[in-house]
């Protein structure tokens, strides 16, 4: 049972983060500058955990977002799992806590999800002929906002109460050095 408590805490925190993101996105964000807080949280944890746990974290984050969004849950789960699958091998070889690497990955992840979701929605329920899918122009603003927030808040988000058991204090290199 104790194994599930950190995931429950993760679900609670990520739901609150997505609620904040939704509040910011609802007509308050200038120029579509809406950070993907799920990606920031996921990369923060993925930097200090193994691939299997990173995937479970991605699943919880995606379902939390699905609870608040009109986007298709399967598209959301696929998007965050893909970020986790890409981040895990990078975290095993490079230090994802380096600010610029973290910002770069966050920008790529946030931007890709911002492009993927409108694309998936258009394929699922095609817009009437002649209507251009919207959202395609939001890739850059979301990527930029996600990168900035990842620089500033990634470590703080993973340090939220209850999330400690999901990640370890040492980075990959410290772990490798200790093993030697």
């Amino acid at each position, binding site marked *: 049972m104790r194994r599930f408590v950190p995931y429950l805490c993760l679900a609670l925190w990520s739901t609150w983060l997505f609620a904040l993101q939704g509040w910011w*996105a609802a007509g308050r964000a200038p120029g579509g500058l809406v950070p993907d807080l799920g990606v920031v949280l996921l990369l923060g944890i993925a930097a200090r955990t193994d691939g299997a746990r990173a995937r479970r974290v991605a699943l919880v984050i995606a*379902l939390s977002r699905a609870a608040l969004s009109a*986007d298709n849950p399967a598209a959301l789960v696929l998007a965050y799992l893909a970020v986790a699958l890409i981040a895990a091998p990078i975290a095993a070889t490079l230090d994802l806590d380096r600010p610029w690497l973290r910002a770069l990955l966050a920008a790529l992840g946030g931007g890709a999800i911002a492009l993927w979701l409108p694309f998936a929605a258009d394929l699922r329920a095609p817009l009437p002929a002649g209507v251009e899918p919207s959202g395609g122009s939001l890739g850059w603003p979301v990527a930029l906002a996600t990168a900035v927030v990842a620089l500033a808040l990634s470590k703080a988000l993973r340090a939220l109460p209850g999330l400690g058991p999901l990640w370890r204090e040492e980075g990959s290199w410290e772990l490798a050095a200790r093993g030697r």
Partner: protein
Amino acid sequence: MRVRPLVLLALLCLGLLALRPDARLEGALERVLGPSRYLAQVTWPIARLGRVELRASEAAVVASATGSRAASAALLERWYAAALPRAPDLVEGRRLVPGEVLGRSAGGRDQLLVRPWSLEGLSVGLPAVVREAYIGRIAEVDTVRGIVRVDLVTGRESHVGARVLALDGAELARLVVGGVATGGRPARGEPVTWLAAHHPSRTDVDDAWFGARVVVDELLPELDPFGKLAAGYGLGAFARGASDGDWRVEPIVDFLHGLSSLVLLAPGTTRAPALPDAPPHPLEEPLWVAARGFTAGDPSPWRASVKLDRGLDSGLRVGAAVVRGARLVGRLGAVSASGSTVRLLADPGLELSALAELEGRPTEPPRLLGRLVALGSDPQSGRPRFLWRDVLAIEHTQAATDSASVRARLTTAAGDLGLPAGLYLGVAMLPLGSSGGAGHVIELEDAEDALRGAERLFVRQVDPRLAGLEGPP
């Protein structure tokens, strides 16, 4: 790092599910996600953040609802009146029964579900018209639900006898009209659709015939016992198809998106004594359930949605109208047992039918704009934008030939199950003149944030009499 084949398989399945919807799997996923909806409700303080600043506006909205409802009711009354035929020879000897189009039948786009103001005297085969245009005939009278089904003349099996008339009223030819003939798909917009014409009495067509009026004139009472009632009603203009001998009729109504109200013709004497009372305004029907929005917005910046705390258990269904006061704020997108998602007016792809009351043209009846498709909000102003396919464009007036647009008050039009007519949408500037098939982009000027300050929303339940009726896929 090795990724297990099981994970890859899961990704593949998710990809398929994300791109190819499957109703059963999606339903199962909704049930699995049920608990997460409750989890989401704990975020309600964030939703209130956006409401505190304008709490006072709630009272103003409720107060203005009465005025908006009265204005919408007056507009609907004028709209129903506008659907009545005027020409004395088309009214004489007929009883007129107005009806509201509820939506399309599950059988396809070519059958309408109609709620007539009265079922008295209605029977299968009676013609249905919009003003002076013939659109089809009654296929079924459902006295239990209080509705009739109308087979449109666009149906594959539909046909009606017709005459081609010269300008002076002389008969040029006879033919049978029914079904559709489609043209090529333009670069933008939907394919142009005509009514198909068959079995012409003459084949020596003169170029002067094209554009001539085609009117109903059924010669065989054994095929259409009520054909005489529809005689003289228009079908459209005679048109040439892709080749010689390919004749078509360019319709005078938009069969796809332009049917909101109609008139059923029954045998009778005169119009005035037989016209029944209009139905109550949709907001006065006991079909609205209060709901609370517990999110402040959608985490996806390109979407506009809100989660509600009511769902299937409260009688709500996909497509239901959601109002604040008398103003439509959106339609239900997804509905689970205990919750639902409102797609707000700015959510891209949201579709609805609209009526427009043009400012400065008090003598004109309201215009049916047909289908509006949401394009999201304008990045600068935040106003919801819509694509309006101007199948029937708004023309310039003699008084103001130089203005490019006209201000209009928009309300919903009937034609979609769950979305009744007469709900206030907002004010918009409508471009004058035809867009040439591409459609015009319009903005709702006074709907930047219709939800801000809202404590309660009201969602329209399924009318118990209409439960089980679904539109075409």
